[in-house]
């Protein structure tokens, strides 16, 4: 029981870090960014390159990698997304193209083999008789802190107010003199940075290879559909639901059934309540 509680919390934290960024950029810019999983992959690969080829210390490599991916996110937003933001279909296509280009670039540069992202903690911890890897506990801790910090940033800062304003009414926000393009860039940087961080934290215990972007985007998608596109509390709640649902199915039924949970949840939610738990209105 305690094991399910801990393992489910770790999965939920990783999912939440992925989904919050994904829903944030949708809530603010109405951009359904299919390249979000690529930021996750690039975070992990960036840390791999910086630690194994450039021999940087892990913390420096991780921070630098987050910064680089955030900058890459801004670049993608400026060059590809901004000119065609009016058409959601075009944005969908261009971000999918970016994701595939990133995947192929990783294939060509690193091959299809797994790569190693070193862990910050290699030790094993025992909590109430449950053995749990330090890297997982760290992912849980950092996930909670970072999402908390993001929440404070949105609620307490001027940038945060601007983000809220745009998400509630983009036109009115623009009339009030809020520089929406700059805000989009900030949100894109935050979203990409969060995904990269998730990749770095999950890299030591999950896979690091060119197709690693696909599963996270599927999960993030499922979570935001369940939670409501654009709603941060919705995605946190849905991340918890999905993380725990998968863990419970894994423990009580079979590991081979876990992957169907997210697909089923998406399907059910789309049938029963297409707006998701919190719908559009509850954005932030």
């Amino acid at each position: 029981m305690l094991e399910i509680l801990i393992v489910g919390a770790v999965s939920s934290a990783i999912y939440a870090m992925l989904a919050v960024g994904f829903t944030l950029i949708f809530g603010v810019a109405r951009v359904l960014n299919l390249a979000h999983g690529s930021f996750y992959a690039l975070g992990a690969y960036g840390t791999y390159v910086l630690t194994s080829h450039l021999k940087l210390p892990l913390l420096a490599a991780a921070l630098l990698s987050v910064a680089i991916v955030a900058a890459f996110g801004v670049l993608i937003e400026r060059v590809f997304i901004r000119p065609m933001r009016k058409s959601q279909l075009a944005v969908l296509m261009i971000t999918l193209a970016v994701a595939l280009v990133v995947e192929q670039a990783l294939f060509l540069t690193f091959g299809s083999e797994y790569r190693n992202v070193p862990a910050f903690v290699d030790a094993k911890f025992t909590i109430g008789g449950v053995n749990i890897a330090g890297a997982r506990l760290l992912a849980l801790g950092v996930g909670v802190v970072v999402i908390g910090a993001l929440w404070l940033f949105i609620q307490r800062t001027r940038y945060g107010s601007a983000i809220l304003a745009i998400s509630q009414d983009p036109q009115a926000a623009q009339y009030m003199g809020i520089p929406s393009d700059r805000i989009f860039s900030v949100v894109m940087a935050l979203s990409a940075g969060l995904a990269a961080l998730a990749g770095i934290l999950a890299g030591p215990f999950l896979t690091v290879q060119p197709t690693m972007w696909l599963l996270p985007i599927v999960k993030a998608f499922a979570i935001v559909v369940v939670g409501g596109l654009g709603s941060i509390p919705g995605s946190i709640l849905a991340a918890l639901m999905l993380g725990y649902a998968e863990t419970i199915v894994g423990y009580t039924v079979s590991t081979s059934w876990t992957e169907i949970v997210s697909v089923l949840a998406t399907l059910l939610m789309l049938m029963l309540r297409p707006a998701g738990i919190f719908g559009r209105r509850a954005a932030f």
Partner: protein
Amino acid sequence: MKPESLERSVISRLARGASLAAACAALALPAATASAQSGPIRIGVPTAMQLQVGRDTQDGIKMAIEDINAKGGVLGRKLEMVVADETENPETGISAIKKLTADEKVDVLIGGYTSGVTLAQLPHISAAKTIYLNVGSASPATNAKVKTDYDHYKYIFRVGPLNAALQARQMTGFISTFVKGELGLSKIAIVGENAKWVQDLVPLLKKGATEAGADVRAVEFFDAQTSDFSPLFSKVKDSGAQYMVVVLSHASSDIFAKQWHDSRFPMAYGGIDVKSMDGDFCDRIGGKAVGELAANFAVRAPLTPKTVPFFDEFKKRTNRQPVYTAFGANDAVYIYAEAVTRAKSTNPDAVIKELEKTSYVGIPGTIEFDENHDVKPGSATFKGPALLFAQWRDGCKREVIVPKTMRTADFVYPSWIKQ
């Protein structure tokens, strides 16, 4: 759309065009075949180019071609290689065969990886009447028709790896003689990914292990996409098993090893782990595979006089450790070249007769074919290829543990397991 599907549609269109052109050409040009007899002998290589198995197939063939050409070629003709990407998708695999046979008009095909792809290719290979030396896929079904429908399927040979049924038999031997016999652990759990060949193999394994006196406490399958093994490990631990036998091929080997190590799972594991055959698997996951026992078709050990020199030469040229397709493909080129030399022609029927007589000392052992053109396994009296169980050790070095006759070091438990 994934890029493969675009590529596939373009390739299949090209292939259709090519086969049309080939049909027209065949009506007009009997003289062309005569002139082809004097040009280079063309080796077609259908393989999954983006994977290490595919790259190693090509490099293994390239090494053999360069060596043979440096010595004057075969029947005075040089060898050359044409590659086609068969990916892991049957449709693309068929297009690759059509491209190589109809368009490139190769004399022989050497390649293969995924059994599903090879099975889909078989009718097209036999229709093209081109000899096919399989060096990658393990399903017994690929060679099952050679004996029953010889005229159609005589072109199909498997140089390696040992087919899945033989692998199951050798795995059962591993459980009874090593896990139960030497380690004294009779309670085992069998864990495998949800793939067709694994579902076929696991019941055989369970039956064999039970007959050998082992107590199979749990049989668990997991999805190839699984990213969290905690529930599975928990079930295996609760079952009371003492040793975990795994069957992993296309996915998750890295996550499995990482999470096993990170949680200091109190049980050793070993079995078939295809990714763990890669020479640098352990390094690539930060040394977390140390302690795992994985089956290999060859490792750098003096199995035959060719094994160690091949491993060293391959490493020198490519800066990689070879996987099984590398030495299968390398041996296949020599086997084909010798058969052509004996037949004094590249005519498929003549070459097939000579291939059937093959007894070639290759890299994993002596290669001979049975009546299904399948590679014969090694035994007490025959030094053919066998499954070798090697353990990852500190520094990501490998030591052969099973079979005992080839042992290079004694088994060591992972550091956190107390005996």
